[in-house]
């Protein structure tokens, strides 16, 4: 099977934007019945390569080859015609339309020029079953949690019966359970003879699913080989071009300080009756499947959504905060998961984003103190190694650097409690390490770090304690000695009774 002719190839493709070369002579060949991994740090050129393979962009030099024939003008329409489907990292669904309508969008069965909803429903139901979508098909996509929307996106790609399926970080917003369904599905598609390209930052998934790997580094292929016999460290070395050592820094043993958070029966949004306490110097993990009330718990603590509690003490303050400003004043800071929509003002400059929370503090006679602002921005950029002109729009930065800006802007306020919502989602390995080290140094300085993460190894390796959410409640609080991937995933899925709620 593996020696058959590739369905889709890129041969020595070059692509540059505004004079910056992004791809410098890249080859890749997708063969039927094989799951091909594409790895590389953010900015290595993965997205550009996908765009070339799916016809969204034209190569400056080199060819895209379908079934052995070079295609001169490859377009998205031609790609669809050739049976190439892409599941994008950024979701491309219409929130107001139903699941069925989204899946059928642009390819709906017609009758007399009108959409044949009956036929659509039957054909869509079939695809949904394959990906494990059990929600009613007429439900608006906007009502679904992020992870389920991702499954709709995958179903949409499958509906078009592709011969080549490109998956760009498909699991970044999926729960462990959904990721499992997707893995089974990928194996099934592989056995049916579909050529798959799988892009992920999660190396364990890649190891489990893929048989061949192409690694990009700065627009050049550094490896194109079977995966067998290469371990995770080997992959990381090929991506960063040097020995990266362990992804996670060694755990720190520090004394915990005064209790900063103590909640009894705290409720906010989906989160119900949470008993929770945490002290200075701790890193407390929040785990569970995606969308079980973890995010609402953080937002409730932060005063961003209404919250109630039987008794509560947060940073020496009684009662849940009524607004974000009071939470900020009490020393809380929140770093959202969706940095593009919640964390940053994308069209504004790096400098204005960094200054936003501290605007009121840097004033002289009521006017902004430009010199002090400049110093602060320069200092933050240096501490977080954000290179280049700080007057550029923040949307020009890579995902990892955007996340650094979203984090750095809080440092001048010297928060005592940091609430982080999936801070490493879609972030390259180098930046991940920097973020991990930063979280540890916060804890060492006597701050409390609350880390919500969908990446279970992160919780295992960084946290002193992990609270696992399921259906809005804390179903388990794991002490450090009890933390393991199995224990977290088990509690999240309700298969374990170990570690009763504390």
């Amino acid at each position: 099977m593996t020696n058959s002719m590739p369905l889709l190839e890129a041969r020595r493709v070059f692509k540059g934007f505004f004079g910056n070369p992004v791809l410098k002579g890249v080859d890749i060949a997708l063969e039927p019945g094989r799951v091909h991994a594409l790895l590389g740090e953010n900015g290595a050129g993965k997205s550009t390569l996908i765009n070339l393979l799916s016809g969204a962009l034209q190569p400056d030099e080199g060819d895209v080859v379908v079934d052995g024939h070079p295609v001169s003008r490859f377009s998205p329409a031609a790609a669809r015609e050739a049976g190439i489907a892409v599941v994008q990292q950024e979701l491309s669904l219409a929130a107001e339309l139903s699941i069925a309508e989204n899946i059928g969008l642009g390819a709906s069965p017609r009758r007399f020029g009108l959409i044949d909803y009956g036929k659509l429903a039957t054909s869509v139901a079939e695809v949904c079953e394959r990906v494990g979508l059990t929600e009613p098909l007429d439900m608006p996509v906007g009502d679904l949690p992020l992870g389920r929307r991702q499954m709709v996106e995958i179903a949409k790609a499958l509906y078009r019966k592709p011969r080549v399926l490109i998956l760009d970080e498909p699991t970044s917003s999926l729960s462990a359970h959904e990721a499992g369904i997707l893995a089974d599905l990928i194996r099934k598609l592989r056995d049916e003879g579909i050529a798959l390209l799988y892009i992920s930052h999660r190396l364990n998934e890649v190891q489990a699913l893929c048989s061949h790997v192409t690694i990009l580094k700065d627009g050049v292929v550094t490896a194109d080989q079977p995966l067998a016999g290469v371990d995770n460290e080997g992959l990381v070395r090929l991506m960063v071009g040097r020995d990266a050592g362990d992804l996670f820094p060694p755990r720190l043993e520090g004394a915990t300080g005064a209790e900063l958070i103590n909640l009894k029966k705290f409720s906010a949004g989906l989160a119900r009756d949470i008993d929770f306490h945490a002290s200075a110097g701790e890193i407390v993990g929040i785990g569970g499947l995606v969308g079980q009330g973890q995010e609402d718990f953080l937002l409730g603590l932060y005063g961003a959504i209404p919250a109630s509690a039987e008794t509560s003490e947060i940073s020496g303050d009684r009662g849940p905060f009524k607004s974000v400003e009071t939470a900020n004043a009490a020393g809380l800071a929140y770093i959202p998961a969706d940095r593009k929509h919640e964390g940053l003002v994308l069209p504004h400059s790096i400098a204005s984003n960094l200054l936003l929370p501290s605007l009121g503090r840097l004033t002289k006679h009521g006017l902004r103190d430009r010199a002090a602002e400049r110093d602060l921005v320069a200092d933050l950029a240096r501490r977080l190694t954000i290179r280049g002109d700080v007057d550029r729009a923040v949307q020009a930065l890579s995902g990892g650097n955007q996340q650094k800006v979203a984090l750095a802007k809080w440092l001048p306020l010297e928060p005592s409690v940091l609430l982080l919502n999936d801070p490493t989602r879609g972030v390259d390995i180098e930046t991940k390490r920097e973020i991990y080290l930063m979280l540890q140094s916060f804890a060492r300085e006597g701050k409390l770090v609350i880390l919500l993460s969908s990446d279970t190894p992160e919780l295992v390796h960084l946290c002193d304690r992990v609270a696992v959410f399921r259906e809005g409640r804390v179903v388990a609080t794991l002490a450090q000695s009890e933390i393991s991937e199995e224990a977290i995933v088990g509690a999240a899925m309700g298969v374990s009774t170990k570690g009763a709620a504390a």
Partner: protein
Amino acid sequence: MNAVKAALRNPPLLTFVLVALVWLVAGLTLRGFGAYGHLRYLLELSAVIGIVAAGQTLVILMGGIDLSVGAVITVTAILLPLISPDFDPTGGIGIVLTLAIASGIGFINGAGAAYLKVPPIIMTLAMATFLQGMLVIVAGGSAVSVTNATVIWLGQARPFGIPAGVLLWIAVSIVMLLIIHRMPAGARFLALGANPLAARLSGVSVTRNTLLLFTLSGFFAGLAGILILGMNRQGYVGIGDPYLLTSIAAVVLGGTSILGGRGTYAGTIPGAILLVTTTALITVVNASPGWRSIMFGALILGLLLISGREARR
């Protein structure tokens, strides 16, 4: 070449250049256009629009819009003569009271938008309709003449040969540029306009800033109303109507994004002058009022295509 490109990317500058060009060409071709008295008159009219558009600029920067400015102008122009007490020869009390009422109307607009979550376009439109009804009841159809000394001075005096209204506009411009570019509040308005959710999660109070913005918009509309009253010497129902659309057009002509989050009052200033100049040129053309309106609308569209269009996002 690079300087031209830079100018094209800088809407305030581009609008200034456009004004200069129009003045130059009109001054050379039309007799009387370039006379000092005529240019001074154009600036006087621009001052009114510029002051109304000050509040409008702030509201639009935050992604809102204030459709009640015309009604607020009418309210101040009619109310001021009625509430200025006779025992105050300077007229200062009447002005302070009127400005307080105008700001109060703005505050109510802000409260509706912030607390009741009524979209600003609906809230301010409802407010405008409400105020117009009130005026008909209070003032009836008759015009009221102003005797307030300060207001008349503001509308008629020319210290050092410069109209007092233009001096007032210069003061307003300085305050506006300080608010937007040198005060924390300005940066917050822009952040709220570009991404309200991210701004809120960064500790920027949506409620407080919305109240502040609409109050300021009411205040500036009130200020403009007083100036118009001084220039006209009479207040009547409908006096403020022409200023609603012109205030929005001046803001957009100056390159401020109608979607919020990007722009500056430095663009609104030439925007207002350009608008007034265009109107004056159309008046010169011998055409019926209907045709003049059509030409004015078409010209605004044309100008927007040149200068104030949305930058690619």
